[in-house]
């Protein structure tokens, strides 16, 4: 890995010298150093994901040889098909998208927008105090409410359903209420006032004036809420225990558990890498296409991935 990074690291030097001769020698050296370190870091950081993707394209002899095979040859596509059909991953993908991530994302957006509007755009007594309570709930570790919530949802008969995820999303999420409120505050009050004079209701103002102006904030909410549901593992682990209802994250884990119980974990790696690649791929694609929204969401409010 070191030798590779050094050869690549030498490249900027050539570009640099071609571009201008006015840069001093020390600046030159520091540039080469920075590029070398960055490329070494980049290779280190991407390696696990590279290994995930390439391992899913190898057949068994390529997987288990020393020295490790860096580039799959021949490329072996069967792992994807075998792994996906070995368990009912179609069902799991359907559950992840339509029963979990999409409804939770959409409901969280709608409810959080309504609440944020009440905190940002309507003046009423006690508003700031309750907003502080809302902020404070962000500090509450999930472990504290986990057990009582489980008991509540169990008594409601919601085990092995997606209600424990969908129903709470109807009541807003403190992070997104905060984010949307901050954004709504930056929209000039004159716009709402003008609409009020024209006889618009508060819902009308939210729908017709605030919503179209809040697209960047809405994008952040949609993106991160989807990401969190897609990646959620502990929630399904607690509430879902049938194969027919499990989402993708749980399906991968169960696949490994089964391999472990049959003493074939080692043999299962190509399959595990294949399904991991397929489950990680949507997230990586979303990131590539919505990179700016991601970066904005993190750098303005510190939302975690």
């Amino acid at each position: 890995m070191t030798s590779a990074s050094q050869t690549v690291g030498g490249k900027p030097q050539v570009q640099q010298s071609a571009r201008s001769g006015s840069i001093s020698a020390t600046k030159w050296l520091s540039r080469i150093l920075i590029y070398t370190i960055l490329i070494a870091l980049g290779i280190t950081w991407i390696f696990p994901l590279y290994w995930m993707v390439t391992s899913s394209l190898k057949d068994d002899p390529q997987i288990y040889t020393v020295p490790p095979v860096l580039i799959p040859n021949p490329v072996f596509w069967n792992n994807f098909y075998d792994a996906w059909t070995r368990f009912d991953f179609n069902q799991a993908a359907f559950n992840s998208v339509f029963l979990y991530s999409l409804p939770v994302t959409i409901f969280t957006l709608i409810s959080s927008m309504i609440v944020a509007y009440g905190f940002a755009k309507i003046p009423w007594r006690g508003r700031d105090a309750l907003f502080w309570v809302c902020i404070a709930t962000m500090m509450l570790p999930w472990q504290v409410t986990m057990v009582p919530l489980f008991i509540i949802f169990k008594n409601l008969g919601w085990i092995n359903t997606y209600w424990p995820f969908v129903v709470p999303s109807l009541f807003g999420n403190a992070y997104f209420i905060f984010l949307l409120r901050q954004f709504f505050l930056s929209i000039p009050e004159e716009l709402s006032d003008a609409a009020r004079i024209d006889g618009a209701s508060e819902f009308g103002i939210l729908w017709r004036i605030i919503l179209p102006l809040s697209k960047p904030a809405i994008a952040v909410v949609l993106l991160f809420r989807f990401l969190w549901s897609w990646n959620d593992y502990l929630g399904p682990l607690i509430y879902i225990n049938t194969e027919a209802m499990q989402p993708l994250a749980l399906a991968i884990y169960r696949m490994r558990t089964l391999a472990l119980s049959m003493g074939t974990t080692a043999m299962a790696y190509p399959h595990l890498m294949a399904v991991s690649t397929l489950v990680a791929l949507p997230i990586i694609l979303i990131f590539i296409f919505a990179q700016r929204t991601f970066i904005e969401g993190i750098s303005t409010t510190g939302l975690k991935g």
Partner: protein
Amino acid sequence: MAVATAPRRGMTKTERRNQVMGLLFISPWLIGFLLFALFPLVASLYYSMTNYDFIRDPQFIGLANYVRLFTTDPDFWTVMYNTLYYVGFGVPLGIAVAFLIANLLNSDIKGRTLFRSVIYIPSIVPAVCTAMVWLFILNVQYGAINGILKTIGWQTIPFLSSPELAKPSLIMIYVWAQGTAVVIFLAALQDVPRSLYDAALVDGANAWHRFWNVTVPMCTPVILFNFIMGIIAAFQDFTLPFVLTGGGPMKSTEFYVVNLYRNAFVQFSIGKASAMAWILFLIILLFSVILFRTSARWVYYGGEK
């Protein structure tokens, strides 16, 4: 809240309307807060003082669960040590590495967006997928790293299967997934006024002095933010240790929340699990307060102070 719900007589018609509309708009959050945060919080405190196994009715036993955890519980202190080790080394190391990478990315380089993406993507890929990949890469027999070591004739390293190396291995993966902190730091670095660096240059400060006396102080508020968020998140890390090592070998990676989960949903010791949750809550609160309290000494708030 009673004050807020009852519109006072002294209000004008508009004020009264706003009071009603405001409460109406935030009511989803308020109901959700009462049902899914406040009630479970109180219930959890109650359960922590009972003997409860999901089946028979809870028996009130006062503080016995807490006393037992601190005195006779065979695992509590091991689990606490493991977690403090992970948080104590992982979080500062993660912040240091993230800050250095952000500084490298902030220098005058080409391809910043590409490098940033490479560093950031691991932190949004589903944790179950990254856990599977690391499980494979760090495997003693078939892993890529040991494959490379074997190729150059070195001894293999039992990253996850030795009690001494399991925690450092998990910390390594934790640091690898700190892309969010890098993005936050990078945004903060780009906000540092150029004029400060120019002034430092005029005063003859070299790169090292500029880093220590301009960059670091100007970034201390964000360092504090990342520290607090990092500590809260690291204390609650579940998926990675649960999937990668399941707490082993020899309980060396049995972290607090993994143990809490096991107590609640495997052993059904609800009282003990709830007491653990409250202890964790107080520890996180304590750490946050200490960081905030000491922050006046090391955090520099531009013109605000």
